[in-house]
């Protein structure tokens, strides 16, 4: 059995597999399916200061080998997250989890980040500056290097735990943004969030998703994610948690070969509630087959070429 343990700022993980934010709720729902303690960590659903209902229905559409969503950051607000959601998770998961922080203004981000970072179950923050499904905030910070850096700096000042910035793939030059947040003090990067996509109803011509556009995720975006993770990990020194289209153990290995120090699994949890469990099993088998004794050895294996 290969060593799967991976250490990242704020996270000492028994393996590099983390369910991605928004596809795993606050974690406890999945404890019905398997013992979630097998997970390296958990990225919980995006949290904002106030409760948000999110976008009108339909929020979901499909694409070839993937799905579109426009949930719109529905969440019960930070008070409920801190006092109820995390408490429901506490008895079920022993390791640190990652808080996904969202907001419509710099102030909101900073306040949510500060308060989340003080909770004892939170090992790191993931700052979601890349949600394509809300009008205010979010993605502007993710498409402008200066704004991304300003936000990172402000959050670093208040956070008690390491800060990861979650990047959007919908930009001309992701490396520029990655470098800006690194320079601003980010401890790590998580990437990628969803690609922007649309589908239309053929009869009416209406966009299927009520919000019109949605975020495209799932296997279809894997080659895009691999390219961006490769580019960013070649350009920055801080670790990257790679995601986008991972659906099996092989995809995890490919993402780490591209340069990711750990991975997150998103949409696949929705299609198969046992996905992360199966992926961890597959990972163990694959590494043995490949004769790899420590998973950290394959991180960035491609960079030599």
């Amino acid at each position, binding site marked *: 059995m290969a060593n799967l343990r991976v250490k990242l700022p704020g996270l000492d993980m028994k393996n590099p597999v983390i369910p991605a934010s928004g596809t795993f709720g606050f974690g406890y729902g999945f404890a019905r399916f398997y013992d979630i303690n097998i997970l390296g960590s958990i990225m919980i659903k995006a949290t904002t200061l106030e409760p948000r209902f999110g976008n009108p*229905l339909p929020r*979901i559409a*499909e694409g070839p080998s993937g*799905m579109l969503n426009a949930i719109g950051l529905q969440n019960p607000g930070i008070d409920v997250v801190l006092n109820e959601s995390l408490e429901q998770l506490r008895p079920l998961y022993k390791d640190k989890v990652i808080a996904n922080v969202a907001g419509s203004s710099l102030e909101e981000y900073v306040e949510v980040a500060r308060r989340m970072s003080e909770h004892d179950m939170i090992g790191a923050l993931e700052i979601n500056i890349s949600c394509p499904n809300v009008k205010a905030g979010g993605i502007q910070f993710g498409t402008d290097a200066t704004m991304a850096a300003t936000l990172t700096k402000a959050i670093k000042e208040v956070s008690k735990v390491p800060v990861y910035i979650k990047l959007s793939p919908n930009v001309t030059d992701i490396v520029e943004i990655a470098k800006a947040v690194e320079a601003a003090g980010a401890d790590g990067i998580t990437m990628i969030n969803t690609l922007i996509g649309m589908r239309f109803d053929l009869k009416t011509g209406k966009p299927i998703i009520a919000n019109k556009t949605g975020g495209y995720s799932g296997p279809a975006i894997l080659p895009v994610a691999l390219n961006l993770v490769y580019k960013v990990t070649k350009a920055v020194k801080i670790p990257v948690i790679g995601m986008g289209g991972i659906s099996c153990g092989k995809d995890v290995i490919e993402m780490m070969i591209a340069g990711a120090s750990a991975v997150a699994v998103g949409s696949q949890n929705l299609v198969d*509630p046992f996905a992360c469990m199966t992926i961890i099993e597959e990972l163990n088998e694959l590494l043995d087959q490949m004769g790899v004794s420590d998973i950290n050895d394959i991180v960035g294996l491609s960079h030599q070429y």
Partner: protein
Amino acid sequence: MEKYLSGIFTITTINQLTSDVYEMTIKGEATKYITNPGQFINIKINDSKEPYLRRPMSIARYFDDKIVFIFRVVGEGTKILSKKKVGEKLDCLVGLGNGFTPVGNGKALLIGGGLGTPPMYELGLQLKQMGVEVTTVLGFGTSDQLFYEDKFKELGPVFVATMDGSYGYKGTVIDVIKQENVEFDNYYACGPEPMLMALAKTYRQNGQLSYEARMGCGFGACMGCSCETLTGDKRICVEGPILRSDEVIIDG
């Protein structure tokens, strides 16, 4: 390892009911997770990444280890499903959603519109078993879309409405209920949203309405199906698909 709510089923029968509607029986242990009529299963159409999402289907009947569901071919997923053969396997999540709560007294009215008809059948059987008097109203577009009329007749009186009048009454299910002065204490309905909305407006109390929504997961993880009701946000896949008629927000 036993997987909660999850199982591999074997297709045991496939019957074509109309030009584009099929009835399929699948056999598998995970049937045991079903607790209520009106629950649904979520089907992985094949073991490829395309189509990616599962397809939710209401349970029309369930036995010890068998589930019957009825589907219409509307897109790629249901097309592939319709071409499956007896003996092929289907990976399903089972026992999803709250389901109907059959009320054991008074008169029951079942209302099924189009592909909303199937879940009413198991419910009707259970109500009858409980000794409840059952009347059924079915609505279809045209006569050639009709199915399961005979089955519902075993439960009690059946009225059929077609939009074009090609069979039974011409008009909507509500037209029939009114014309026939159908008496009921509780009603249960599944069908297109405009039908459900009309029912909730007309009969505000004692109704259980089964909704559809495009779903990411079907088991509560993605918030893809969350809608607002008078009693708070509800995920159609967990706190639904059945909503109480008096909690539905009436538009307009």
